[in-house]
């Protein structure tokens, strides 16, 4: 039962990822007083892309085709770390957050290479900007998780979640508030959402992620889009698991897990609504204000780490 | 009687060599005598090891400390004689400047240095120490060029003045001993002085006064800053084998004298006073010489300053005291002499083939003279104290003793100077070894004697860095036992 539940978590994260995108798109449309597309549309798009042929620039090398595969593999692998319906995960007891963050980095590294391999100006532009954002985002990401790990005295994500579960909701310390703030900021940056990056733009002055994938088409683009969606979903699930895990199944009974899945869906929906509101309400930051944004996140994370020494014991 | 043999061989040998006008024969005889001398010294060392002490009359005695230094003398002088046998092929025949005169003076020089280590009496020690100056002054001025004469004169005058102060210090110590009731014969004998020092109540003022004069006096010969001024001149202008002997043996002998006095004074008035002075001189020498290394333009002067720096290191080891400091100081004395001989041998080869010792005139010798460059590189890496060479171990021992005693100022200065010296050596050696040779340098071929001398020295450095041979360790421990 345990293994089934854990595989279920992975499947939810991977297969549910496009839905997350669909929901956000729909929510934003509603907020903008538009009808908006069906929330299942991303699935249709994926299928459409997967059935097309792959267009490859003649000047590119094997890396161009390899990059989406590695990106997808690495991103999919991170889903095995995140507890969703129960405080455990496929690689829960071993896989710690350093691995998670670095697996994301692995994917990003290859995606950037693929972008450069396209040989056009846009790919380089996107890769260069992505390099800036991601290199600055890694520190607050890890520091925030470190603060949580110290509070929980555990290093694996499942353990941290289990510890949080055991706490009363009103016992949550200032550390959690700080970390929540910084991780939310990091999540926005990592997944390329507003105000760091605008996922819907194709204006060369502003695009980051879109610049990188501009040369991709067909199945490769599908993999990239899917991986992006999975990443977004993982970050969402991570935020939920770390800061609002209550309601997760405590046993392996089918009922408990079903309930937990439903509860997760509710929490995710709430978070998605919040995200849509944020995306609609804020303007994109100027490129060179992004380091300040992430600097604030780093400072908050560092503060959280320092606070752990007072809160603990 | 055994003690007389190593003293008799060089004196008689010096006379013998002068009888042979043919340079090749003189060289052969010198090598033979050198081998005999090394054998005699080996026998002495072995007997001391077996019996603990050897004595001969009132004035000669050998114990663990002497035999440790005698071993160093034997090793280095052997290397130097081998190297010199090839080196002198470039030397012409002139009045007082022919190979036979060279060897005769070298043996006299050796005689005085061996006597220093074998003397039982502080007065005799002084006489022989002055003898080293006299015997080597002519060697320093051997080439009879303007520079050599200038260096020789300065060497002679500065060292004689310095050592006159040591005589005064000896007299003051003698006075203190006599006043405390020792017989005139015993009052200069350092074993009886060391035995008596804690008991009979030597006047502490006089003892301290004596040590001040002695450390200034013998410190002049050791090359402590600010009495070091003769050292770079003499090392740079002397024939290269002599530079090696001066740096590797003479300085150690002077240090040996300082050690003896330090041991006596430490017993009489406690170690704080003499150790403080040693530390002051050691650190000053290290810092000043280390800085001066950076701005040298002459290869041999560079090495001379490096010798001053290393004497400073040894003095710091002595000044720190403690088993580790003492161990480091003694080991470093030996290691430094090996490394410095190797470097001087390399410098000698460079001089012969590039015809200059100016560092900016030496370019790209790694192409034109690869073996010599290898020797210089090994010597350079060793002398700056990099692992896996033996100097690393001894510097390390001294440094860890300083750490253990929480003398952080010494530690910091030590480390800073080491890195400055490293920078200096790297800078100079890089410029010499790399780059294009200026013109088509002569095709340099090493002759076997040079190979042998440099090879032995280099492998010794590496070998001692890996592990200290058992027998050597035993001798080292016996030497330490004498001082503690």
């Amino acid at each position, binding site marked *: 039962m345990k293994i089934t539940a854990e595989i279920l978590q992975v499947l939810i994260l991977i297969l549910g990822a496009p839905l997350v995108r669909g929901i956000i798109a729909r929510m934003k449309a509603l907020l903008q007083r538009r009808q908006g597309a069906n929330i299942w549309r991303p699935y249709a798009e994926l299928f459409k892309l997967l059935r097309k042929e792959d267009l490859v620039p003649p000047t590119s090398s094997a890396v161009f085709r390899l990059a989406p595969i590695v990106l997808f593999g690495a991103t999919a692998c991170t889903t095995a770390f995140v507890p969703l319906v129960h405080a455990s995960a496929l690689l829960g007891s071993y896989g710690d957050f350093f691995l998670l963050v670095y697996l994301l980095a692995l994917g990003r590294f290859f995606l950037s290479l693929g972008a450069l391999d396209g040989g056009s100006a846009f790919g380089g532009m996107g890769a260069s900007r992505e390099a800036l954002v991601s290199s600055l985002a890694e520190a607050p990401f890890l520091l925030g998780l470190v603060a949580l790990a110290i509070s929980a005295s555990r290093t694996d994500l499942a353990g941290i979640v289990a510890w949080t579960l055991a706490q009363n909701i009103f016992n949550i310390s200032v550390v959690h508030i700080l970390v929540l703030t910084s991780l939310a900021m990091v999540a926005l940056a990592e997944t390329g959402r507003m105000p760091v990056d605008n996922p819907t733009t194709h204006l060369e002055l502003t695009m980051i992620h879109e610049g990188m994938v501009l040369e991709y088409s067909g199945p490769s683009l599908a993999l990239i889009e899917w991986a992006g969606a999975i990443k977004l979903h993982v970050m969402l699930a991570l935020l939920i698991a770390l800061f609002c895990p209550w309601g997760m199944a405590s046993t392996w009974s089918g009922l408990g897990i079903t309930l937990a899945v439903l509860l997760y869906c509710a929490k995710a929906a709430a978070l998605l609504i919040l995200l849509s509101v944020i995306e609609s309400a804020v303007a994109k930051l100027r490129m060179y204000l992004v380091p300040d944004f992430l600097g604030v996140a780093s400072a908050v994370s560092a503060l959280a780490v320092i606070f752990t020494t007072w809160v603990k014991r | 009687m055994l003690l007389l043999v190593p003293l008799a061989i060089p004196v008689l040998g010096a006379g013998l060599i002068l009888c042979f006008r043919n340079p090749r024969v003189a060289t052969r005889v010198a090598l033979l005598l050198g081998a005999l001398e090394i054998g005699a010294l080996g026998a002495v060392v072995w007997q001391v090891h077996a019996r603990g002490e050897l004595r001969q009359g009132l*004035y000669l005695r050998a114990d663990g400390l002497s035999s440790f230094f005698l071993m160093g003398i034997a090793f280095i002088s052997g290397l130097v004689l081998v190297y010199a046998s090839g080196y002198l092929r470039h030397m012409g025949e002139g009045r007082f400047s022919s190979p036979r005169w060279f060897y005769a003076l070298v043996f006299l020089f050796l005689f005085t240095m061996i006597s220093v280590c074998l003397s039982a*009496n502080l*007065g*005799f020690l*002084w*006489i022989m120490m*002055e*003898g080293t*100056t*006299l015997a080597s*002054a*002519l060697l320093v*001025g051997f080439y*009879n*060029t*303007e*520079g050599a*004469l*200038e*260096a*020789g*004169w*300065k060497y*002679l*005058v500065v060292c*004689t*003045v310095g050592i*006159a102060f040591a*005589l*005064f210090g000896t*007299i*003051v110590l*003698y*006075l203190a001993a*006599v*006043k405390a009731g020792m017989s*005139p*014969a015993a009052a*200069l004998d350092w074993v009886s002085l060391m035995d008596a020092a804690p008991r009979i109540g030597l*006047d502490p*003022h*006089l003892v301290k*006064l004596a040590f001040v004069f002695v450390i200034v006096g013998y410190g002049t010969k050791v090359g402590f800053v600010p009495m070091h001024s003769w050292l*770079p*001149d003499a090392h*740079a*202008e002397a024939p290269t084998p002599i530079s090696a002997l001066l740096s590797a043996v003479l300085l150690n002998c002077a240090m040996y004298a300082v050690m003896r006095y330090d041991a006596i004074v430490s017993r009489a008035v406690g170690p704080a006073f003499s150790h403080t002075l040693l530390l002051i001189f050691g650190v000053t020498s290290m810092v000043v010489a280390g800085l001066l290394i950076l*701005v*040298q*333009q002459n290869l041999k*002067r560079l090495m001379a300053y490096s010798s001053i720096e290393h004497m400073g290191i040894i003095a710091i080891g002595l000044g720190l005291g403690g088993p580790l400091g003492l161990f480091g100081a003694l080991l470093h004395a030996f290691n430094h002499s090996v490394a410095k001989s190797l470097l001087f041998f390399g410098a000698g080869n460079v001089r012969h083939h590039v015809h200059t010792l100016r560092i900016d005139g030496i370019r790209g010798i790694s192409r034109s003279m690869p073996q010599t460059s290898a020797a210089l590189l090994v010597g350079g890496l060793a002398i700056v104290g990099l692992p896996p060479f033996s100097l690393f171990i001894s510097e390390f021992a001294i440094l860890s003793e300083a750490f253990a005693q929480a003398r952080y100022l010494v530690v910091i200065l030590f480390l800073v100077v080491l890195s400055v010296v490293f920078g200096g050596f790297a800078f100079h050696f890089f410029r010499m070894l790399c780059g294009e040779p200026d013109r088509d340098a002569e095709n340099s071929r090493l002759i076997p004697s040079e190979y042998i001398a440099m090879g032995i020295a280099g492998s010794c450095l590496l070998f001692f860095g890996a592990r200290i041979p058992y027998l050597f360790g035993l001798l080292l421990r016996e030497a330490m036992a004498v001082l503690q």
Partner: protein
Amino acid sequence: MGLVGIATEKILSSFSVFLFLTILLLAVARRISTCVLLFSLQSAVITAEVLATAFQEKLVGVYVVGLLVFAIKVVAIPRAFFLLTKRLKTVRDVKASTTPTQSVFIAVAMIYLSYAAVHSYGQAVQVPDDALAAAISLILTGAFLMVSRKKALMQMLGLLVLENGIFLAALITTFGMPLVIEIGIFFDILMGLLLMGIFTFRISDTFEHLDVSKLRRLRG
């Protein structure tokens, strides 16, 4: 106590004055030959003190030392110096870097310093103040001559004066070291002077002067 006894007393107690006198004269002397003469005189005074000590303490070894001092320092060395100056044909001037007035003042200051030093150590040693002060001021003067006189010969002479001081100090504090050691020391000094002589010859051959302050090729 006969006449000789009284003489020894007198010598030991008051001959130091002569030593001070030679010091002052050495400071103002302009010619090398005068300096050598003064050194010879100084050594003669010291010989007298040695012999007096030997008589007083009845030490045979010290007599021998006294004779050696006389033979070497009063006769042999000055003689050698005269020969040297003749052979070298150098200018006879000492070439001081201080004026005579300055030199005298410095010499007086040194004598004062010696007395000051003796006062801080005199009690410990229990010897006549004057003699010890004279010994120390000889050492200082020797040093001063070496630093301030530019001629190679004068440096040798300064060294000898310095050595005289050390010798005198040893004599009055400890009645000299054991004989063998004393002889060894004399031998060393002789050899040292011989070597310095050789060097002065070579220097004057090569450089055609004897001004050591001009030997400044090696520096830095």
